[in-house]
């Protein structure tokens, strides 16, 4: 008996070996190489030239760089906060109410429909949303006009006061399906007897929602919040495909700024610096988040 217990309580390290090896090789070493590059001046070919901390000095004082972060924060609203909240309510609604009243098939149908935007390559999504936002014949302005709301029409992607919000709109559309699917999978783990017991005790729907549902699927909620926030901080494709950071610099984000330096301006050293600073910020955020999450589970 003692022998069997001990064989199951330790010796799991071996399961980590393939993962750790692959990560070291393909992630950690390139990341270290990138840090090394950030101390150089390099155009992408030939020899890098060591310049010490000069790139970091420049980055700290670079207003475009820090301004771009503001857009990343806006995208956290659009990609983390809004979709998670909507996703929670929609998932519970579909999982409980719709399944009860209309059956599993209808619920799955809606889930598939809401997830559909996640399937599309962002490059393609950008094409379509450009058509939607087109000021002269686009769907959005067309809809507003047909509702008699002419005064609300805008040059969505061309006006620097609306451009970022237009991008955010597309990202909310894109992102809702992801928390929805995860939460619906999570809800399957919840024992229905808990709800019955709570109902017997006189709990309202809202109480059941907060004390049972949210409490029990909190692992998935953590995952969704953290991963969408990281995604928002790293976001690149929609900016690349829809606005290229314009009008002017209205929609530049940190990752796109770094890309411009890497690939367009052949400023690989500086691009590496921006990417390193961005990564450090993300790592700090992640570490704090995970420590909090791990502590709460114990």
């Amino acid at each position: 008996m003692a022998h069997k217990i001990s064989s199951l309580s330790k010796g799991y390290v071996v399961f980590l070996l393939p993962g750790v090896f692959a990560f070291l090789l393909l992630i950690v070493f390139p990341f270290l190489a990138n840090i090394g590059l950030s101390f150089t001046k390099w155009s992408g070919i030939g020899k890098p030239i060591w310049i010490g901390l000069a790139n970091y000095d420049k980055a700290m004082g670079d207003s475009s760089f820090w301004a771009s972060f503001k857009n990343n924060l806006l995208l956290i609203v659009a990609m983390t906060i809004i979709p998670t909240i909507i996703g929670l309510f929609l998932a519970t609604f579909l999982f409980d109410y719709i399944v009860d009243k209309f059956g599993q098939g209808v619920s799955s149908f809606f889930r598939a429909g809401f997830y559909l935007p996640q399937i599309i390559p962002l490059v393609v999504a950008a094409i379509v949303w450009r058509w939607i936002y087109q000021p002269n014949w686009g769907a959005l302005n067309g809809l507003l006009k047909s509702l008699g709301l002419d005064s609300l029409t805008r040059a969505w992607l061309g006006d620097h006061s609306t451009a970022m919000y237009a991008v955010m709109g597309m990202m909310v559309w894109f992102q809702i399906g992801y928390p929805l699917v995860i939460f619906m999978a999570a809800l399957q783990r919840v024992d229905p007897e808990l709800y019955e017991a709570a109902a017997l005790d006189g709990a309202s729907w809202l109480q059941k929602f907060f004390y049972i549902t949210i409490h029990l699927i909190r692992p998935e909620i953590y995952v969704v919040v953290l991963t969408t926030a990281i995604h928002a901080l790293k976001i690149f494709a929609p900016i690349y495909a829809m606005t290229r950071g314009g009008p002017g610099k209205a929609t530049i984000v940190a990752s796109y700024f770094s890309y411009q330096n890497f690939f367009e301006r052949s400023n690989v050293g500086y691009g590496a610096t921006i990417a390193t600073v961005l990564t450090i910020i993300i790592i700090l955020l992640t570490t704090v988040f995970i420590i909090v999450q791990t502590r709460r589970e114990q």
Partner: protein
Amino acid sequence: MLTKRWIATFVAVVAILSLLAACAPTPAAPTVAPPPTEAPTKAPAETPTQAPTAPPAEKRVFKVWHYEVGYAMGDSWADALEDFKATHPDVEVVFEEKTFEQIMETARMILSSADVPDAMEINKGNATAGLYSKEGLLTDLTEVAKERGWDQIMSPSIQTTCRYDEKGIMGSGKLYGVTTYGEFVMVYYNKDMFEEYGVEVPTSLEEFEAVCDKFVAEGITPLTLGALEMWPQTHNWQELLLYKADRDLITNYQLLQGEVDFHGPAFTFAAEKFAEHVQKGYYGPNANAVGYVDANAAFFQGKVPMNLTGSWAFGEFMKQIKDFDWGMFLMPGKKFNTGSGGNLWIVPQNAKNKDLAYDYIDLALAKKAQTVMANAGGIALNADVSQVTDPKVRELNELFATIVKNDGLAFYPDWPVPGYLDILGGCLQELIAGTKSPTEFNDCIAGPYNEYKASLE
């Protein structure tokens, strides 16, 4: 039970897929180059059978890439490729259609690897060709060009963008690329609309503005502009700059030498004029939100009478415009015009079959392929004029020839600095939106330019 089956399936699938991915021969790239006429519905590309090599004589493979499929250049190069196949029956030809983006972003990586083609198209300019030549990634073609007569076909001003010095600056030095066409910017206009509103082709900037004012007064946007994409407006802006620029300014600007005063008379004029045109409504209220494709569509549909863009689109315009009569004119009343030799054919330093590449370039520059280019709406360097049928195409080539004769080619404003296209385009978006004044705009574009120039020392 269930789990054992899962494991087995899992392992089997992974093993098979990894093997497939790593070892299976990939289907060979199609050797189809689209025919020069309008693309009819064609069967999916044939895959040449991969015969196991028993005979000792290895079949040579000629790899060639470009990204102009569907344009006049692409048609002409496809024709040259067919000629190549006919004259080199023992060579297997592998053509791959690329994208502009892919080459722009990854050319450095590709050229430094072993997977290089024998001949490929790259963009001209310091930021691309200049950079690659500086790092030794391109074959020096100076001698070959002399031997085969390429330097006779390309005039000196065309060769400006083919030669790069040791610092990677264009204009002088060894010949690293060959261009087979020219390009320039002009105003396409709707003749029917001009007649309807009683305006004539302008012969000066003032007349041009009067034409625009007339259209604005009638409630019509005079010029279409896809400013969302950042690069179209750089042409409109430079055309205005050229009214006050001289050859020295252009040379200094392009070659990053001497003094370029972004607050001098030429740049001040350009910024203020451009802002003035925006305010007078010449580009309509939403230019920043409209894409290039949409801007052209508005012109095709006869909604907007003028479209300032390049000769690269001429072939498409020829195919798309059916409902009205159209023509072209240069922005009137100046010597210089945005334009240059076309994109470059280069032979990578790591290429395995350089002689085949040279043969191909010969064919691309030969009269036959060049005439194909002209007839498809391109600006050829060596076409047989008597074979050019369409009068508009003749007009196009004549316009270009005139500019070259007057030494008027002023190149493109984004060349001097890598990544300058988005900078210039972005600053212009702000000028259009009114969030930057002309002076602020000039600051906006001066900063990065001077920074890059300083970093070269």
